[in-house]
């Protein structure tokens, strides 16, 4: 291989989804060259970042080879043709270990492919590997993974303290931020796409609940789980979301609606649009950097032509407790299937009966945070507590949705910070679960209401760490969310990236 080819390969990892897709389609480089470049970057970073649970360089090359052949044969290319991506290890991938970052599924190789991942492969994307995450997507820092922390590629200026990449899609955020993947899938139950995107200076969108099929995605909380893309910028998110979304008869909660042409519909001109600023999100003691970034965002959207409207979402303060009842309740039931009987880990102590086997298997296979949420969920559903917790939480959930619907009678989108702070150090919050849960305070309400919401990079904190702005839209109005995100992106001019220390 000639020398300049090596140069090209390095440069290719700087490109995002649109640039790679267009470059492959236009013949500037081949999909195979792209795959080689990212495979090499993945390998170089894996020891330091631990972003992947397994890497699949051959899968990336195979997909790229098909794209190159199709192009050579003059066949039409898919929306993601030639773009290798990271796949969060919550999506079942046929023939490739799928673990949800839990030891209870270590070695589990599904004989089936999730709908979303299949759609991406059908669109011409290739798989670099299965990305690390918080175990069963439960966490906000990636510290609950059964396969080790993901280390954020970001560091505070002049400091080598390992930082959290956010969670639960921390492998995804770290990989995209470190330029070892141009894009990655994420899933978002209470903020698991948006908070890690904010922590690592990338973009990520959680579409309306029901846009992306949940079939083949390891379930955490079924009424909240939703897949979405994580990428360098808004356009890349739009492209990838088009490839991921769509009705799936195998998921009863999937929306039977056509997928809009979000990329073609991108438009940062917000004249005539109204942006709501919910006063309840301006909490006491809001981090000064976060508050400033929010104010910047308001100014940028005004600059883009939008009218800024003060709104109220009165039930906001109940969102977090409501979420931490509903999500664990569903999880406690969803995770019952990991029982050692049919697949995954089985711990069968000498002389054990069925109950002993269940207890031993689940004790050994689940991490502490997963156990904590199963316990919470079991508790809130148990006889005598169900009405006080679960039923009450469902009522509050309806009120939170109603708050948003009322606001959307006046405004088109809502702007908030994505997370209450920039990335924190690994270990800083892992001993206090409630402190960790508070990270989701701004992202959870939109999850409970099933609304589309995205995080875009807004700037850096005083410590030089990324901050995200959060746009929430009406049901099915991903376009409005993406457009507001684009307006922010154009004005934020966010170009910072982590220095390569690995």
């Amino acid at each position, binding site marked *: 291989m000639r020398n300049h080819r090596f140069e090209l390969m390095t440069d290719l990892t700087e490109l995002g989804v649109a640039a790679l897709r267009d470059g492959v389609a236009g013949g500037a480089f081949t999909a195979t060259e792209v795959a080689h470049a990212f495979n090499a970057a993945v390998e170089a970073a894996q020891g330091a970042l631990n972003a992947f649970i397994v890497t699949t360089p051959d899968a990336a090359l195979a997909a790229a080879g098909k794209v190159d052949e199709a192009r050579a044969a003059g066949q039409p290319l898919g929306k993601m043709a030639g773009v290798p991506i990271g796949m969060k290890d919550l*999506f*079942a991938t046929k023939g490739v270990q*799928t673990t*949800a970052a839990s030891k209870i*599924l270590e070695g*589990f190789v*599904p*004989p*089936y492919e*999730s709908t979303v991942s299949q759609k991406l492969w059908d669109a011409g994307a290739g798989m670099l590997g299965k990305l690390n995450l918080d175990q069963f997507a439960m966490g906000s820092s990636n510290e609950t993974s059964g396969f080790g922390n993901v280390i954020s590629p970001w560091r505070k200026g002049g400091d080598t303290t390992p930082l959290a990449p956010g969670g639960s899609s921390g492998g995804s955020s770290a990989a995209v931020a470190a330029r070892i993947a141009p894009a990655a899938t994420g899933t978002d139950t209470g903020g698991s796409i948006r908070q890690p995107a904010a922590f690592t200076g990338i973009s990520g969108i959680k579409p309306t609940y029901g846009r992306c099929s*949940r*079939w*083949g*995605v*390891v*379930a955490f*909380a*079924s*009424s909240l789980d939703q897949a979405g893309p994580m990428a360098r910028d808004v356009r890349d998110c739009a492209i990838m979301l088009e490839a991921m979304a769509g009705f799936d*008869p*195998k*998921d*009863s*909660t999937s929306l039977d609606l056509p997928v809009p042409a979000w990329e073609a519909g991108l438009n940062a001109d917000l004249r005539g649009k109204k942006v709501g600023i919910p006063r309840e999100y301006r909490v006491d003691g809001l981090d000064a950097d976060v508050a400033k970034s929010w104010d910047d965002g308001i100014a940028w959207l005004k600059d883009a032509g939008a009218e800024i409207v003060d709104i109220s979402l009165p039930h906001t303060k109940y969102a977090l407790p409501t979420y931490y009842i509903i999500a664990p*309740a*569903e999880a*406690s*039931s969803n*995770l*019952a*299937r990991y*029982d050692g*009987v*049919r*697949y995954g880990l089985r711990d069968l102590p000498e002389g054990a009966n*069925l*109950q002993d086997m*269940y207890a031993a298997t689940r004790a050994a296979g689940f991490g502490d945070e997963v156990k904590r949420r199963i316990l919470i969920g*079991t508790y809130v*559903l*148990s*006889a005598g507590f*169900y009405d006080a917790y*679960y039923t009450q939480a469902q009522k509050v959930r309806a009120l939170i949705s109603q708050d948003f619907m009322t606001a959307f009678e006046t405004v088109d989108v809502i702007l908030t910070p994505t997370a209450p702070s920039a990335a924190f150090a690994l270990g800083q919050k892992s001993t206090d679960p409630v402190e960790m849960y508070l990270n989701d305070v701004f992202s959870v309400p939109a999850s409970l209401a099933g609304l589309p919401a995205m995080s875009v990079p807004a700037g850096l904190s005083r410590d030089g760490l990324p901050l995200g702005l959060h746009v929430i839209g009406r049901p099915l109005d991903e376009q409005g969310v993406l457009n507001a995100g684009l307006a922010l992106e154009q004005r934020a001019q966010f170009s910072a990236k982590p220095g390569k220390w690995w």
Partner: protein
Amino acid sequence: MSSYRIQGATGEWEVVIGLEVHAQITTQAKLFSGSATAFGAEPNTQVSLVDAAMPGMLPVLNRECIRQAVRTGMAIEAQINTWSRFDRKNYFYADLPQGYQISQLYHPLVGEGAIEIVLDDKNPEGSAKVIGVERIHVEQDAGKLMHDQHPTMSYVDLNRSGVALMEIVSRPDMTSPAEAGAYLTKLRQILRYVGSCDGNMDQGSMRADVNVSVRRAGEPLGTRTETKNVNSVRFVMAAIEHEASRQVDVLEAGGKIVQETRLFDPGTGTTRSMRSKEDAHDYRYFPDPDLLPLVLDQAFLDECRASLPELPDAKRARYTDVLGLSPYNAAVLTADVDTAAWFETLITASAAKQGKDEAAVAKQAANWLTSELFGALNKLGKGLEDSPVSPTSAAELLALVGDGTISGSIAKQVLEKMLETGDGAAAIVEREGLKQTTDTGAIEAAVDAVLAANADKVEQYRGGKEALFGFFVGQTMKAMAGKGNPQLVNQVLKAKLG
């Protein structure tokens, strides 16, 4: 009305019974997956990724199961809930891959309905009782554990896992084993008419949880026990009998009935404790977030109703009121949907062959079917479903009786030959020369010979012993090998005996 009482040492006790019947819905596919449901398949050959609860798998409702449950609800005049919802019932067991059963606790598909039972088929109106049905909900069946295949391990067969069941919950309206038996029989009859369940109790398609309590007359309800998975009408009745007297014994000895789940042992006809309320699971029911609420529109309901067949009660009323059958025959012929269908094919064919309307041939056909064919098949150890004689060939036989070609007694012989050979009635009559004789000369000759040979009896008859007339008829028919036309034989005998 039944007045079943248990005679205890201290007095009389009443029994209060409610049944929860699990009926497997007759469909090709399971409730939430596309897997097949055929009985008797090799273990674990009808298991989809959903049934095995693989990670990330999701349930998708099979609308046909809902349709059958709605039709069943309509057949018992029940409230159909156009908005219902599925809940998860959470517990761990090796036959339950998901760790929860998808069922309907809070908002069942079918609400309040009723089933009328008849305790005496000969007196349907006088012995009828209405049993309330509280609800019908739809749920998944579990798999099957086999503990006898290996010394230390249990084997799991997931073929049944996810199969659709209706749980039909009665009110505690039954007060005797006979009523419970009649209720279960009637329910099975309705399900088979509707086609929503094949009612094969020996294959587990239908099984009952039996709730029993006892009390002294006029007292409030006693504590009940629930005997699980009883799989025949006879066993249900036996379980109630045993359980009720056991409870009386306990109470009369100064003990208390513990609310518990019990098992019935068909070998001994007794029940034994399985688990008490203290050990009962906390099922942590909550709405299944993988499924949307089930909303039924009017067009769907209309189709369900339009597709209902004539139901047992209506059919039985028509058989007595329009076809003129006896209440007993009507009950026997409507007891099973296949019997009724056989009978109706028979009368349609008979009416066509004899050029009469159905009401005119129905009685003859009903009598023949219930007394002749059932009896003959019984001897052969066969049921109507595997009868060698089809309704159309039976109609041919009945037409030969109807037009006087053969007599009723010859018809019996012909039927035997038909069952033996599979040949048609007319062909057998022709071949065997069984045609009835209407030749008056031959009959007169036979009568003369009989009277001559029995002069003493003729004397007695003429002396007033008229009961001997039957003897002369019999002797004449015997002499004519059964082929004499009975009316003519009667006429000639009457004339000659004076």
